[in-house]
């Protein structure tokens, strides 16, 4: 077995003294693990940082084997955000969510393209909006899509302002009035393609996607959402003061 694919490094875990077990999100082979010999060495360690885009060649005798990767750097995304705490938190969170949410060896090309676009958008200031939309897209891709097309109660599609935590369907402002304390807020930028959310809208969006990710995807784990995702939420809430250090 032998294939070559475009991949994004999600994680690398030391294996033995010199090797690493690397998890990649590949374009055509989904989330795929493999052994990288010499992965902890100084030449390869930098390549295997989460978020880097690489060209990976996977080889194994049988398809069900772990196999070995040989990796070549295509784009060093990680190095560009290492010094920015917020962007680094965004990158780490996206990689951790992808790592935890996707089944192994199940192709999810839209998630790959979305993650690539998200990582590519990190140098821009509006990346948090893209991040929330990416999580929303991820939920849809793995079978837990939110229905934001019309109100669950009235069928209307104007003034959608809440989401039902039970059904994951949008609820209009008028229909939500009696129960709005029990509903999740739906920030408007999620309804308009290309729209950018204000910081408070982004935080509401993260609460929304975080709720469904935790309930549907990470509910089976004892720890809930990945620590990296929680750190991102904390950083975005304290954004005005987060850049005052150093």
């Amino acid at each position, binding site marked *: 077995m032998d294939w070559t694919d475009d991949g994004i490094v999600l994680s690398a875990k030391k294996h033995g003294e010199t090797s690493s077990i690397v998890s990649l999100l590949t374009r055509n082979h989904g989330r795929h693990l493999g052994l990288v010999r010499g992965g902890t060495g100084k030449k390869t360690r930098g390549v295997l940082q989460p978020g880097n885009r690489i060209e990976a060649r996977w080889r194994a005798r049988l398809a069900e084997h772990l196999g070995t990767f040989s990796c070549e750097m295509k784009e060093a995304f990680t190095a560009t955000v290492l010094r920015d705490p917020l962007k680094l938190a965004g990158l*780490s969170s996206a990689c951790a969510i992808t790592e935890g949410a996707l089944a192994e060896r199940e192709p999810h090309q839209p998630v790959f393209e979305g993650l690539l676009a998200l990582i590519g958008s990190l140098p821009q200031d509006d990346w948090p909006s893209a991040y929330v939309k990416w999580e929303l897209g991820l939920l849809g891709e793995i079978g837990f899509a939110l229905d934001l097309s019309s109100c669950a109660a009235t069928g209307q599609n104007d003034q959608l302002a809440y989401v039902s935590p039970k059904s994951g369907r949008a609820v209009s402002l008028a229909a939500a009035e009696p129960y709005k304390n029990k509903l999740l807020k739906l920030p408007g930028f999620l309804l308009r393609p290309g729209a950018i959310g204000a910081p408070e809208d982004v935080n509401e969006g993260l609460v929304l996607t975080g709720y469904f990710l935790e309930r549907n995807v990470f509910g089976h784990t004892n720890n809930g959402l990945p*620590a*990296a995702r929680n750190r991102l939420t904390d950083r975005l809430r304290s954004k005005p003061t987060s850049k005052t250090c150093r």
Partner: protein
Amino acid sequence: MVSAEIEILITLLAKLPGLGPRSARRAVLHLIKRRESLAQPLTKAMGDVLENILTCSACGNLDTQDPCQLCTDPKRDATLICVVEDVADLWALERAKVFQGHYHVLGGTLSALDGVGPEDLNIPGLIDRVGNGGIKEVILATSATVDGQTTAHYLCDRLASTGVQVTELAHGVPVGGELDYLDDGTLGAALKARQPV
């Protein structure tokens, strides 16, 4: 037929970094051949280390005394603290003889993958040391990796309220490094951190 005692020794040595069963077997044979000149001094040295080495309660360094010699050395600048991930990093800085302040060993980095959170590292000790006063600068010498920098940013946030200056090591071209062989990330970091000549 190898005796059980030798087999146990081979098994234990094979667990050391850099050694496998085959090299452990060679090491054991070598130790047996040089019983007096090597095996006995080695046994004594290992016994001494196990018996006497302590972890410094102030900085986390390994030494025969607590606080360690680095923490009690009056020639060192006690207003500077260099935060490192492991004792190996502390030793590397000491070998280079480039830093004359005090250290703080975290004992690792934050890692979502390995489930290492702030409570698993020696972070409260650092906050206490800085909070006790007398510190002018904290140098974050964590690795230039996602985990290392995540830890550095976390520490930076925790130390922000203390008013102490927080700095970090530069990232760039290593001595003897050729631009042609550097990765894109290091080149970018080096270009961003350029200085007037």
